[in-house]
């Protein structure tokens, strides 16, 4: 089986406009959560989110190109450009023809759709903008990435709510591992800040009125986020042969379905996904040195995830740091797992475990070492990145540090 290297990473989110700014923020425990400014929040009960501050397409896309792209697709291309520039693959006609693009997104361009539907329902007009459909479709991120790089191989988008990007990265990993593709651009992107979407989240009563405090006894829910992280995956040996910088290796991928409830998580389903990832990687629980948790900061997730981690890791839990970086970059839905995969890569690569920020008080029902508030220096060889979606669809990535 082919070993799979991550040779490029790109990011844009509340913590920064590139992967270096993202790494600096999570490695110092800085949160990007604050008042949402990109949309009118006067009718929304909660006010805070993790927004890309002062975003404008201008430095990234000319106006005419931006006309065709919802914010979520713009984020996808921005992160992909950085990842591809960092990987600097040796493009040949054959590589462009066979490279894969697999992206994750939960709501796609629903913000564009929200604006379009206001024309019909609120303003009484009889037409919406003709680009509403191509801007709204969830695969727009993958499509624009393919056009950006002239990549014509297998390209598609996976939408599994909060696990979307993990399912996407996992598929890309398996395609490289099996030899089905020589290179993959993969990750997730999301931009959910429009009034209609925010009102729908408000109605679920899972959004915190202040900030995101995963695993803290006084947690009051999640904080929505936006952005993208994208990666370039290649066969490890080929990457080494051409002298590429290798950020980390993906060594396993596991999936499961809870088959229990449309919103309430099941510890059993989460545990099965982690066990499946370990089995796929050929690892035993005691080899894992860090978990980047799904850690949404909701009452239900954090208890269920803690129980799942205890079930899988048993007595190893005592020496297993588990943190939720959603406390800093928010819950970016279909991009969440990509940002969190990047957080795990940074931890393995730089030897600094990102903390769970905004943590106030231990919860006996979340009895984990959550790396509270302060980053921790630690050289870890293997890490997991957990994603457990609404709808009970779970995906877990296993990553390995690369010795330099």
């Amino acid at each position, binding site marked *: 089986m082919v070993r799979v290297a991550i040779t490029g990473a790109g990011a844009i989110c509340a913590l920064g406009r590139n992967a270096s700014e993202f790494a600096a923020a999570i490695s110092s425990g800085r949160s990007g959560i604050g008042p949402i400014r990109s949309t009118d929040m006067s009718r929304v*009960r909660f006010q805070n989110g993790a927004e890309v501050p002062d975003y404008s397409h201008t430095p990234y896309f000319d106006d005419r190109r931006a006309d065709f792209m919802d914010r979520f697709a713009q984020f996808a291309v921005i992160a992909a450009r950085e990842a591809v520039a960092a990987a600097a693959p040796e493009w040949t006609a054959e590589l462009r023809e066979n490279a894969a693009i697999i992206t994750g997104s939960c709501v796609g361009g629903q913000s564009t759709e929200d604006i379009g539907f206001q024309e019909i329902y609120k303003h009484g007009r009889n037409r919406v903008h003709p680009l509403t459909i191509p801007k709204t479709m969830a695969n727009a991120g993958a499509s624009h990435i393919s056009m950006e790089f002239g990549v014509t191989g297998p390209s598609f988008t996976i939408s599994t709510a909060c696990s979307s990007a993990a399912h996407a990265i996992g598929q890309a990993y398996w395609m490289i591992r099996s030899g089905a593709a020589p290179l993959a651009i993969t990750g997730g992107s999301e931009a959910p800040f429009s009034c209609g979407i925010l009102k729908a989240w408000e*109605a679920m*009563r899972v959004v915190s*009125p202040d900030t995101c405090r995963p695993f803290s006894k006084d947690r009051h*829910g999640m904080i929505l986020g936006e952005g993208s992280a994208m990666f370039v995956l290649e066969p490890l040996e080929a990457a080494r042969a051409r002298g590429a910088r290798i950020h980390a290796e993906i060594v396993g991928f596991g999936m499961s379905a809870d088959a229990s*409830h449309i*919103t309430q998580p099941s510890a059993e389903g989460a545990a099965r996904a982690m066990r499946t990832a370990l089995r796929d990687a050929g690892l035993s629980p005691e080899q894992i040195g860090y978990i980047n948790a799904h850690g949404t900061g909701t009452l*239900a997730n954090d208890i269920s995830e803690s129980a799942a981690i205890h079930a899988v890791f048993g007595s190893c839990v005592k020496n297993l740091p588990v943190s939720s970086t959603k406390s800093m970059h928010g819950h970016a839905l279909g991009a969440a797992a990509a940002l969190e995969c990047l957080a795990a890569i940074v931890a393995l690569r730089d030897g600094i475990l990102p903390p769970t920020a905004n943590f106030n008080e231990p919860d006996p029902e979340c009895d984990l070492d959550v790396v509270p508030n302060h980053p921790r220096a630690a050289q870890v060889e293997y890490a997991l990145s957990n994603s457990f979606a609404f709808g009970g669809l779970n995906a877990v990535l296993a990553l390995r540090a690369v010795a330099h």
Partner: protein
Amino acid sequence: MSDDLIQRVLKVISTSKRIPPETVTIDSDFAQLNIDSMDAVEILFALENEFDISIPDDAVRGVRNVRQMCEGIDKLITDKASGPPAAQ
């Protein structure tokens, strides 16, 4: 707390949860009625429509039974009738 208010709350619960009206009483608790968190947010949504009120998240924490729910609705209706606080 009026009997009319109680009857309307009971009806909202039975309609939302799609259970026979006679199974819901002022003394029912949510666990007995098998009301999970998603059922609860649907019931709150229906109560907001029924009484034309807004039920804040922090008002529902700790509400575990129908009586507490009726008391909370009663308070929100009373607060609404007395109008918003005068501008400072």
